């Protein structure tokens, strides 16, 4: 496998979607390739940072309205 091929298989690799044979070839390549290891680490970092864009408080008026709806639902 070349680096050009390996970079395109990285999501399949992370999702465990490679065949056993491809996975073995992928692992073998990665072990000896600093560039591909760096690229994989970058993809993992990107994924980790995307997990952080989510935190956002519920605006108070919306929260008040939803809690009110919940109380109404509860008492109905």
């Amino acid at each position, binding site marked *: 496998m070349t680096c*050009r091929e390996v970079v395109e298989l990285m999501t399949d690799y992370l*999702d465990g979607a490679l065949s056993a044979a491809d996975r073995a070839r992928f692992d073998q390549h990665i072990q000896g390739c*600093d*560039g591909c290891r760096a690229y994989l680490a970058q993809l993992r*970092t990107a994924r980790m*940072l995307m997990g952080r*864009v*989510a935190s956002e408080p519920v605006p108070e008026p919306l929260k008040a309205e939803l809690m009110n*709806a919940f109380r109404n639902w509860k008492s109905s």
Partner: protein
Amino acid sequence: MGVSLFSRLPPCAEGRPTYPGPRVVREPIDPDLDALKSGDEAAFEALIGRYHGPMMRLAMSYLRDRGAAEDAVQETWLTCLRTLDKFEGRSALKTWVFGILLNVARSRHRKESRILPFTSLFRREPGEGRGPTVDQRRFGSDGLWSTPPDTWSNVPESKLLDRETIDQVKAAIEALPPKQREVVILRDVAGFEADEVCGLLAISPANQRVRLHRGRASVRKALEEYLK
């Protein structure tokens, strides 16, 4: 001859079966669902707080602004409450909520498109895209890196996690073609598993991975440019 008494007994007779018995299928217990159904206000408040960020990101990928996205989130929760009694927990609560949000946001998007100027109606949605996700000039003719990526291990964590970097990531996600964006938001922002995303969007596992891969590659590229 030589056959012991035990060999004629059923396998479990000794009380030590060598393989597990029939698997007991239990209904998965979802504490959030139980709490909601019992009217636990604190649990509801915690839930809307936990899902708000990912729900907003997903809604904003279909709708024009924050206000419209907030309306979609509100409608989603109201629909959830209206139909909660009928929800039997066959899917996870989170999957159910996001499935409703997808319906609400898509239907509001269709209504929005009808009132927008017609030029935007003809804006073509970029497809999933084909071809390589990495600039081919970075590889030599042998297919090996000629310009390998930098390692980010020397970027200070404070820089990596600061507001500005997160804003860059946010902008990179928003710039993705819609089909990549919805998969990236569900997988990497909202934290769904691959099979849940395939179910929510009614797409094949291979298609899910292609969209995710292209989306992640674009976000990585934006980060690489920013962190240079």
